């Protein structure tokens, strides 16, 4: 085996500790206000009219009967929204076509999936709004539909968009199709690599669309004032994203909208776009009253983005000693009703943990009559990793080699060139493998019908624009204001970093989430960026605050600022002029702030670069019931290079949560459609997400290889842990049964059929 895990030797007073989260009491006591908790005087309640068809042309929409109902104050359709041109612009996490976003929020000429919004109404009660929605008459011409990704790619498939021509192919097609784009990456010469291989494994895989499964449905309250100013209270992963998207969709100035973020009950990527916020503003504008829209769970399933189901083909070649010589993958991802699946990201990530000289990825983005996919932790990566990590497991079996040894032999290290181009800098993948090997889990004996799987995963992590402001209060306490909704405990991380840099007690730092009028622009909470990028902004804001505190201390001492240094939350004079100057604590400087120039604060806005990539390795033990096909996860260990854990408990929580979601993806979750393209399991009873009793305690190991791009070495941690579980579970089941798992979910009926077909039972 290779290197021993690097462990931080530097210790801090606050960074790396586990204090109670600042928002904990409110959440435990039920005081925290989530999206649906906001109420305003005179508020109306909205309801959305949704398509019962998977694919249909809208011939007409008649809202007159609904509007005649007493208590109904407004109805909107696409006619109330600007007909935006099709153009790609910067906006969300990836380039955004706002025409598609607009058409997804409210259909104009066609509905493209069951649940697609066609109109919305506002009335004095939720019941009345539902009654009014039922009175909206929509005349549809039902069209043929297509659900499956491979069927959608066929030349005779029903075409969703008559202006969609495949990009990335040469020559450019002259007819529209459902294939939105082809992208690809090549490294070296795969033909040569496979020619040099002594063992080749090739296999096709399939995964189903799965939902992010956040516990809190989308909810928004909007007002529209007579001066044209709108205010939105909503749950989202980014108040600035909601402001920008809503402004674009309604043709408003960004400055005419203020978005106040609520607490958020999970997002996992699914709240990185808008669905109901523009509808609520449009209804508020038309009615002249506040309007509240809250999605039901059924609406969440039918009309918000799951992540793509995928068809995957992976081929790898290796020498007898296990050294990989070549790897190829083809990925065909469902985008849902509009282009934009994460196929390209799958192609960039699948082979990333490995040093392969010759590799390629071919990625296809395909639309079909499903809700538009949305980001889901490490978008696109888990499906590609399922293919790659499964094939590597099979390769290890063919070679008679330990799957951990195979991975270590080929592990990417600093200097390894990734398939997508650049060479890695400081990374800690090999260290996660070493940690796996020495973990007691790896050597525990297994019983009958039990199997152990191992799989690895990668995510880039990102930085981007973030803002932070620190205000020193008169009593020496501090407020840290940032612009990112706190999903995974980021308030605590921001407070810990601020306390560490300022040198004051964590309890004296109050972290706050500002609305769009209270803090400068911050990109959304996603991509595992907040602790890294916003944390970096907090550190720089603390540095700016310290610079001001030093100036104020110099004024109090009547000395030049260059003779002041900051240590342990106090200003120290370095001037050797015979005068004895006791250090000035922050609280004392704050108490004299008005005498030295006024309030003390520090604010910065940055575009953070230097996000260190993350790698993880998971070990999973399962037991398979050969009579039912049921799979029980017996033991699970998630190991990850986290750079530096600011608050280890929340980092461990990220690893456990990602693993739990990945296990659900592997074992049970799927969208089930009937012959008419209607979703059959749009409830949490029928869409089977894992619950606590389904899972063992998920053990975690935090490997800390510092990221040099962050003051404390932070790497993003939220994406990586959902990448390995699909393959870790599938590899465990494959080894328990002797049958290679090539399709997810591994639900009991599917697995039982596979075992029967293979003659295993």
């Amino acid at each position, binding site marked *: 085996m290779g290197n021993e895990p690097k462990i931080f030797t530097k210790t801090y007073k606050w960074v790396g500790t586990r204090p109670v989260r600042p928002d904990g009491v409110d959440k435990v006591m039920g005081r925290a206000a989530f999206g649906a908790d906001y109420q305003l005087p005179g508020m109306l309640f909205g309801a959305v009219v949704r398509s019962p068809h998977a694919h249909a042309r809208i011939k007409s929409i008649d809202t007159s009967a609904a509007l005649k109902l007493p208590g109904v104050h407004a109805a909107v359709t696409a006619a109330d929204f600007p007909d935006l041109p099709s153009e*790609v*612009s*910067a906006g*969300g*996490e*990836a*380039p955004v076509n706002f025409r598609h976003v607009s058409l997804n929020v409210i259909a104009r000429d066609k509905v493209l999936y069951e649940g697609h919004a066609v109109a919305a109404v506002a009335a004095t009660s939720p019941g009345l709004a539902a009654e009014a929605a039922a009175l909206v008459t929509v005349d549809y011409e039902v069209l043929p539909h297509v659900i499956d990704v491979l069927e959608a790619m066929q030349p005779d498939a029903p075409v969703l968009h008559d202006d969609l021509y495949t990009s*990335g192919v*040469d020559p450019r097609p002259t007819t529209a199709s459902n294939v939105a784009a082809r*992208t*690809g*990456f*090549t490294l070296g010469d795969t033909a040569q690599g496979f020619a040099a291989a002594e063992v080749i494994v090739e296999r096709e895989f399939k995964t189903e669309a799965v939902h*992010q499964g956040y516990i809190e449905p989308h909810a928004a309250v909007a007002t529209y004032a007579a001066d044209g100013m709108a205010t939105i209270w909503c749950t989202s992963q980014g108040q600035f994203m909601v402001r920008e998207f809503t402004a674009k969709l309604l043709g408003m100035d960004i400055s005419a909208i203020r978005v106040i973020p609520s607490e958020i009950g999970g997002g*996992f*990527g*699914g709240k*990185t776009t808008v669905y109901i916020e523009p509808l609520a503003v449009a209804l508020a504008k038309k009615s002249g009253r506040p309007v509240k829209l809250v999605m039901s769970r059924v609406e969440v399933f039918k009309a918000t983005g799951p992540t793509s189901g995928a068809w995957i083909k992976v081929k790898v070649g290796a020498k007898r000693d296990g050294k990989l010589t070549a790897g190829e993958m083809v990925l065909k991802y469902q985008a849902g009703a509009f282009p934009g699946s*994460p196929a*390209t*990201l799958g192609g*960039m990530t699948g082979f990333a943990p490995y040093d392969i000289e010759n590799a390629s990825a071919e990625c296809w983005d395909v639309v079909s009559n499903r809700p538009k996919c949305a*980001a*889901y*932790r*490490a*978008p696109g990566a888990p499906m590609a990793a399922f293919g790659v990590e499964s094939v590597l497991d099979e390769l290890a079996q063919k070679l008679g080699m330990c799957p951990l040894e195979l991975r270590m032999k080929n592990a990417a290290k600093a200097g390894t060139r990734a398939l*997508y*181009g*650049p*060479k*890695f*800098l400081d990374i800690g993948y090999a260290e996660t493998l070493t940690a796996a090997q020495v973990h007691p889990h790896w050597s525990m004996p297994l019983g009958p019908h039990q199997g152990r799987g191992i799989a690895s995963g990668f*995510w*880039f*992590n*990102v*930085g*981007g*624009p973030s803002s932070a402001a620190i205000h020193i209060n008169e009593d020496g306490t501090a407020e840290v204001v940032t612009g990112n909704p706190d999903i995974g405990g980021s308030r605590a991380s921001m407070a810990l970093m601020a306390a560490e840099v300022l040198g004051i007690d964590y309890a004296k730092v109050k972290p706050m989430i500002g609305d769009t009028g209270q803090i400068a622009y911050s990109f959304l909470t*996603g*991509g*595992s*960026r907040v602790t890294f990028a916003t944390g970096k902004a907090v550190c720089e804001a603390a540095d700016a605050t310290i610079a001001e505190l030093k100036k104020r201390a110099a004024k109090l001492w009547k000395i030049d600022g260059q003779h002041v240094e900051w240590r342990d939350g106090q200003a120290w004079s370095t001037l050797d002029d015979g005068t004895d100057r006791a250090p000035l604590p922050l609280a004392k400087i704050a108490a004299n702030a008005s005498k030295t120039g006024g309030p003390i604060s520090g604010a910065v806005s940055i*575009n953070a*670069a*230097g*996000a260190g990539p993350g790698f993880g390795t998971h070990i999973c033990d399962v037991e398979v019931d050969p009579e039912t096909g049921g799979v029980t996860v017996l033991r699970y260990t998630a190991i990850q290079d986290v750079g530096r854990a600011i608050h280890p408990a929340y980092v461990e929580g990220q690893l456990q949560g990602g693993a739990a979601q990945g296990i659900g993806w592997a074992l049970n979750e799927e969208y089930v459609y009937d012959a008419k393209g209607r979703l059959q399991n749009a409830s949490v009873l029928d869409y089977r997400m894992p619950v606590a009793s389904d899972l063992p305690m998920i053990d975690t190991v935090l490997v800390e290889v510092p990221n040099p*791009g962050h003051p404390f070495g932070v790497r*993003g941690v*939220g*994406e990586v842990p959902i990448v390995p579980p699909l393959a870790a579970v599938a590899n465990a089941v494959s080894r328990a049964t002797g049958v290679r798992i090539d399709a997810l979910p591994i639900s009991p009926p599917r697995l039982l059929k596979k075992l029967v077909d293979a003659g295993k039972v």
Partner: protein
Amino acid sequence: MARVILQSELARRYTGGQATLTIVAPDYSSLIAELERRYPGLMAAIGAHTAVAIDGEIFHDPLHEPIAADSEVHFMPLIGGG
């Protein structure tokens, strides 16, 4: 001179198949100006909404990031997470 490494598809279309280009440029904006001068249409094909990796570090919205004489530059899709 900095090395700009293109994906093979772009190289095939715009640089006569030459995937590794050598450019003298002090910063990113100078580099893309020189690329566009030499290979008209290349930067349009790469697109305005793209990320760039300079010596392994990914930038999402670069402009004046310095380019060293021995730098390696890759264009890549923007990365959106969940």
